[in-house]
């Protein structure tokens, strides 16, 4: 990994309207070349605002960010030479074909016609749309439409790709197709800044993750580092009427299910044995990113301990 693809320093954004909303409160992150960096956060956390500032669509209220060493505030034109963006909730232009998405957008970036054709071909093959390249978007499935838009970004020569929830609404197979294409780009030294609220996505494809909540970064690092931020390492999911046996353990109730968080594997195995004696169904596993995320953003208050 090389340093310096994206760097934000104390980035702030306040929307002034009827109510003043602080969307970003001093966000500082850095993304290297050859790295896929994910901003993970609940809806309204500030992920899209951050991405829109970095992609020069929105002005920051404070702080600054740099893309390939250029300030997004004062050198927007230079920044735009290096970036490509897939916005959130983007719909396809129905009269376009996937080929037109990939080819025309490459041309708009100043790429010559012959090179744009090559890039478009590579991009469409990467998202598995080559066979459907001449079909109108209105006849494609939701996943294929999204991949057509992603192809328009892949066909660019941009050093930094920014994708705002690119796989939301896609089925598992389509999602994996997109992930595979993104990882391939990372291997080719592209920097990718991605937002998502899907834990599995963040876990599967990210090199590093920043958990954003209420406009602030609450955790940042590799998956294992983030999981290491909570003291519990294991969880036992119990189906049925589980009665808490010890005061010191943390239990989260989800209707007729209970999730028990434990520090060691031994504790988890002991609890598993105890629940089996109670004739309850139970299984244990290491804590997931979702467990850590919920703990860090404090979004779930169904605790019993």
């Amino acid at each position, binding site marked *: 990994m090389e340093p310096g693809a994206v760097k934000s320093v104390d980035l702030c954004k306040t929307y002034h309207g009827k109510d003043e909303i602080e969307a970003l409160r001093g966000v500082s992150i850095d993304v290297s070349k050859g790295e896929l960096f994910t901003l993970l956060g609940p809806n309204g956390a500030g992920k899209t605002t951050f991405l*829109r500032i970095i*992609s*020069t*669509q*929105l*002005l920051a209220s404070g702080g600054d960010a740099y893309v390939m060493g250029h300030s997004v505030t004062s050198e*927007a*034109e230079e920044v*735009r*030479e290096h*970036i*490509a*963006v*897939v*916005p959130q*909730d*983007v*719909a*396809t*232009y129905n*009269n*376009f*074909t996937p080929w*037109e998405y990939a080819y*025309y*957008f490459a*041309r*708009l*970036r*100043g790429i010559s016609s012959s090179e744009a054709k090559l890039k478009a071909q590579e991009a469409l093959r990467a998202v598995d749309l080559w066979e459907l390249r001449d079909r*109108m978007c209105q006849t494609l499935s939701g996943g294929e439409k999204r991949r057509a838009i992603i192809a*328009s970004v892949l066909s660019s020569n941009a050093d930094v790709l*920014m994708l705002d929830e690119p796989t939301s609404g896609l089925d598992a197979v389509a999602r994996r197709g997109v992930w595979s294409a993104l990882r391939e780009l990372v291997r080719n030294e592209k920097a990718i800044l991605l937002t998502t609220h899907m834990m599995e996505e963040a876990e599967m494809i990210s090199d590093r993750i920043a958990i954003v909540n209420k406009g602030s970064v609450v955790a940042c690092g590799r998956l294992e580092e983030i999981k290491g931020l909570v003291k519990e390492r294991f969880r036992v999911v119990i189906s049925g009427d589980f009665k808490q046996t010890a005061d010191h353990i943390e239990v989260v109730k989800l209707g007729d299910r209970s999730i028990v968080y434990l520090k060691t594997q031994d504790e988890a195995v002991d609890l598993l044995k105890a629940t089996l004696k109670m004739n309850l169904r139970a299984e244990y596993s290491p804590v997931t990113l979702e467990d850590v995320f919920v703990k860090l953003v404090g979004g779930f208050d169904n605790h019993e301990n």
Partner: protein
Amino acid sequence: MKIRKILQDTFMIAWIKSYPDFRRNPLMLLLLAMISAIPLFFMLMFSSGGNVIVHGLIGAMVSSVSFAGVMAGIQDISWDRYVKIREMIVAMPVHPASYALGIALAPLLISIPSLIFFGAITVFLGFLTLETLVWIVPALIIVWAAMSTMGFMISTYLFKSSMMVLNNLSNLLGIGFIFIPPVYFSEAQLGSLSWISIIIPTSNVAGLIRSSMGLLPLSIETVIVRWAVLIITTSAFIILTFIKAKWREK
């Protein structure tokens, strides 16, 4: 940014915005030509002869480019709100002027076949010569620019309105600027109120075209004033749009 790149992007955006529609929805061309031709049909049915058809053909040409202009602004909103191509383009090395011009140029390209059709009939009737063309082409370009900037102004000032409101507004503008003022008929029919045609860009241009064809007697001073009003109106729309429009949100 280099002028060459700005021009190249302008035509690329215009092409992207027109060619796929043009290729996959050719009926749209027929529809556009028919909308502009509807008043002509009634003129043929109910006119008492004379130059009424030529007046109507001039109206149809002005109508074709004016509709193209108003459509530009509305299309900007739909690109921005639904397909978000504008958002994607903002983050590209593309100049805002390329985007605005490209979006405005696209419907004009689509209206070219109907313009050629109406122009050919006018030539056939002997009213369109090379000499008159020298005046007609710039007049049509300016009215397209005026209506395009008006479309952009609407889309900029009513940025948060629903598409339904904007579509209805564009239809109302079409009626208000194309069918009610003396675009399809001579302003001479308005008598003492004929001055109204000068302040509306569409009827002003229709009057200038008629004058160049010898269908409307105007003094040289009046022609100069009318060109000046047309240019000032268009410039005002451009300035208002530039004041309000934001390439990058604050």
